[in-house]
């Protein structure tokens, strides 16, 4: 164990406890503050010596000793005090003790020491460790016959290890643990006691004498073991009480130590005297001897191996160490077993996760990907309801609280994510009291924040499940408020089953379910990044193809026009030079040739214009459309006779647009309206609608004519480039690009262009533009 961890844990114990409380003063009202690490007393089955090298570096002096020294050594405590250790041990023994301190504690302890007692030589098991400025030497008398050699140790643990390795799940592991510890120690009852998150504990494995009542499945409240005791269980993995009716043996110390405020810290000591409350507890249970071995995982107390005996029972240091060793092996195995727990279920979760990821890949939106297969989303956490919450809407799946209830909960929920991206509770009503009234009695919630900035959350709900907990005795009776308001603790009197029905709780969320939800977030974020990547690649490809299109258009403009101009010019030269010889017919044909080249040039120019339209930047300004329309009408009017009327029934609004492009749009549409019109009086109306569109910032404009109209089947095709409905020389000609260009202009302004038409009666072209913000 790292020294730093030991120091920290000791500090935690010191903070929890009150050193001024003496053993005599401890009762159930203050045992949670009992300084159990500094009892100033030990159990009588050994001797404790406290040594100091202060004053004389070369020699250890005995500064404190347990008062039972006469009993074990035949030398009174008083006569040992302030004496050098050499009084008791010979030089080589002292060197052995010293060398133990130089190396790792577990690797060398214990030592076997032979000490000359009053009449005979007594063999002791000695354990040595440091406590602050002192060295603590604990001696337990041992019988040579009982001591375990390395080979005994090997045969003791070999069987246990092999059995442990064969176990497949947690329950079996714990069962093997209790059986093996019972085999090694011979205790009447051995249990594995597992701590829950709320620090209460449950007996998860048990082996006992047939006539004893079973404690398997019983739950013990957190208050049964005070916090400081839990810390001590981490520091000192094994505690033995050979006889609960022991008389604590007090320590006598040199005067300088006696006056110290804080007695010797016995956290790491195995002889340390235990709390009278704990003794009372054991006595109430009918236990005469007890041993507990800690199951520690990642410096956390996962559980305890607890041994009880109906009569006093001692266990040799070696057998204790074997149990401690087994407990460490079991603790190591725990992780694998816990992970192995529900292996099939976890595999199933992985499958669901993969299918969700696949759905996300194929979906247009996050919402669609997550909710397309609702059952999948629910199965990921074994929930009965879920909600997908995005910035402005919530989608509900299965049994959930009402929409308004979830909406109201969002603010509270938003502050639950300070620690990470996930929050979960099996008792929502406790964490968020308004949830107690949720109609569907939702008690379990897992909330996943995919993006807090974008307020993207996925919530999973579980209903309330009435659960029965078997307490070992009524937990409510353990902590009672006394008259003056202090917490009144009573040591357990009854260990009979007491069943409690727990309300307002769902089944607890398994770690793997919470992890599955978290992994979903990782998958979503991965996908978002991937999409962004694809998009940027697409963009660069688009950019390249735009550049290619640009150069294509450029080549078209030059290389196609040049031969065209040649044809045109040479035709003209032919007419000039040889017109007379060719005759009227020949000249006519050459003129047609020239007209065709002219037409082709128009087409090329339109194409160029169209391709450039998409590439040039818009210069957006606030434009009064009345001005634009009157300019266009004036321009168009120059080439048109009097039989055309353009009406603007009410003043047009001000819009945000590129003035030149919008003027071109009006020119194209008005020109078309005049061109494709065979009526004697051509009427055109320019106006706009005040009806709100899907996008409130946009207005719908229209240009209505009484022209030839468009057959329904052609309505869409007219917008295709160079798609003409009429012969090139009818209706005044044209390249067939005007409407395509118009559509592009509107689309570049973020709007839409469409047409309604009655064949033979006229057409109405509609387009949307953004209204000026202040207009």
């Amino acid at each position: 164990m790292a020294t730093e961890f030991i120091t920290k844990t000791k500090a935690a114990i010191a903070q929890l406890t009150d050193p001024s409380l003496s053993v005599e003063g401890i009762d159930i009202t203050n045992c949670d503050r009992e300084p159990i690490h500094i009892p100033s007393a030990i159990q009588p089955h050994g001797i404790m010596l406290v040594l100091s090298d202060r004053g004389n570096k070369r020699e250890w002096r005995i500064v404190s000793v347990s008062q039972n020294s006469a009993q074990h050594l035949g030398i009174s405590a008083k006569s040992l005090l302030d004496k050098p250790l050499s009084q008791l041990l010979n030089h080589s023994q002292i060197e052995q003790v010293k060398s133990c301190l130089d190396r790792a504690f577990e690797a060398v302890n214990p030592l076997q020491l032979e000490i000359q007692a009053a009449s005979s030589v007594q063999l002791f098991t000695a354990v040595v460790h440091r406590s602050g400025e002192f060295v603590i030497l604990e001696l337990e008398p041992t019988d040579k016959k009982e001591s375990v050699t390395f080979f005994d140790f090997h045969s003791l643990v070999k069987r246990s290890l092999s059995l442990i390795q064969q176990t497949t799940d947690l329950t079996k592991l714990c069962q093997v643990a209790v059986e093996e510890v019972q085999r090694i120690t011979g205790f009447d009852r051995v249990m594995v006691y597992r701590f829950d998150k709320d620090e209460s504990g449950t007996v998860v494995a048990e082996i006992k004498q047939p006539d004893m009542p079973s404690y398997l499945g019983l739950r013990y409240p957190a208050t049964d073991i005070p916090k400081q005791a839990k810390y001590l269980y981490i520091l000192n993995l094994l505690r033995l009480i050979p006889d609960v009716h022991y008389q604590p043996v007090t320590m006598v110390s040199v005067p300088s130590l006696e006056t110290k405020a804080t007695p010797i810290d016995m956290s790491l000591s195995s002889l340390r005297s235990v709390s009278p409350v704990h003794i009372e507890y054991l006595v109430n249970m009918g236990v005469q001897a007890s041993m507990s071995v800690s199951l520690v995982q990642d410096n956390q107390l996962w559980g305890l191996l607890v041994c009880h005996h109906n009569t006093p029972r001692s266990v040799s240091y070696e057998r204790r160490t074997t149990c401690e060793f087994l407990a460490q092996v079991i603790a190591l195995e725990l992780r694998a077993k816990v992970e192995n727990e529900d292996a099939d279920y976890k595999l199933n979760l992985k499958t669901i996760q993969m299918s969700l990821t696949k759905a996300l890949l194929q979906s247009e939106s996050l919402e669609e990907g997550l909710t397309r297969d609702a059952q999948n989303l629910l199965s990921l956490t074994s929930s009965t309801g879920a909600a997908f919450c995005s910035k402005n809407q919530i989608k509900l799946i299965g049994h959930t609280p009402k929409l308004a209830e979830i909406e109201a909960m969002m603010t509270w929920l938003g502050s639950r994510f300070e620690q990470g991206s996930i929050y979960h509770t099996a008792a929502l009503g406790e964490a968020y009291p308004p949830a107690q009234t949720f109609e569907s009695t939702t008690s379990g919630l897992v909330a996943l924040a995919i993006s807090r900035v974008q307020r993207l959350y996925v919530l999973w709900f579980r209903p309330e499940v009435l659960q029965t907990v078997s307490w070992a005795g009524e937990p409510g009776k353990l902590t009672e408020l006394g008259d003056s308001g202090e917490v009144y603790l009573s040591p357990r009197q009854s260990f009979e089953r007491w069943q409690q029905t727990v309300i307002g709780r769902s089944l607890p969320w398994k770690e793997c379910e919470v992890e599955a939800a978290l992994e979903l977030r990782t998958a979503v974020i991965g996908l978002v990044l991937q999409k962004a990547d694809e998009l940027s690649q697409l963009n660069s490809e688009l950019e390249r193809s735009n550049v290619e299109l640009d150069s294509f258009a450029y080549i078209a403009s030059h290389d196609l026009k040049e031969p065209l101009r040649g044809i045109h010019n040479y035709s003209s030269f032919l007419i000039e030079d040889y017109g007379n010889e060719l005759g009227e017919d020949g000249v006519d044909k050459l003129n047609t040739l020239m007209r065709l080249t002219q037409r082709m040039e128009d087409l090329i120019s339109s194409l160029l214009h169209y391709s450039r339209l998409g590439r040039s930047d818009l210069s957006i300004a606030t434009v009064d459309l009345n001005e634009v329309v009157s300019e266009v009408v004036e321009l168009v009017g120059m080439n048109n006779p009097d039989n055309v009327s353009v009406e603007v029934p009410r003043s047009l609004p001000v819009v945000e647009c590129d003035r030149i492009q919008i003027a071109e749009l009006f020119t194209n549409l008005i020109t078309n309206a005049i061109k494709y019109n065979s009526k004697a009086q051509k009427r055109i109306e320019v106006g706009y609608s005040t009806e709100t569109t899907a996008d409130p910032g946009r207005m719908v404009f229209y240009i209505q004519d009484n022209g030839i109209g468009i057959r329904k089947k052609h309505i869409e095709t007219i917008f295709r480039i160079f798609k003409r409905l009429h012969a090139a020389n009818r209706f005044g000609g044209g390249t067939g690009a005007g409407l395509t260009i118009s559509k592009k202009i509107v689309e570049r302004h973020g709007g839409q262009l469409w047409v309604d038409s009655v064949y033979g009666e006229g057409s109405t072209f509609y387009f949307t533009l953004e209204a000026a913000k202040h207009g």
Partner: protein
Amino acid sequence: MASTNSPYLLVVEDSDEDFEALNRVLGRHCEIEVPLRRCYDGDEALDFLYHKGDYAETETIGPPSLILLDLNMPGSNGREVLQQLKQDEQLRVIPVVVFTTSSNPKDIETCYRHGANSYLIKPMKVQQLKSSVCQLLNYWFGVTTLPETALSATALKRSA
């Protein structure tokens, strides 16, 4: 062909058809008669102006009074020729009129930025060609005064 010292117009044009049309219009329809020299592409034009390559021996030929420059040509195109001429202390005074098919605003902008004196889009119709070319010659050789270094080009009036 112009004699070595008289003012002349340098036409840089790769298209024979375009050159013939220009030549024809110049000869038949314009009041002002200006001798022509033709280079087929940008590289030749630069050789001609710097008396290099095939033109190493022609140092007696002075610079032209006006250059009519096509933009898209094989080898060094018109843009490069224009850039080089306008960076040259001696030659930058010669007016350069870009005469091209390209109506791309980017080309127009680039040419003026690089010092083109005028930009003319080759018209499609013969009638328009005639009028453009004649106006051009009339302006540069009749209306404006050209710099001394461009060999005090004086237009020769065509005996009408």
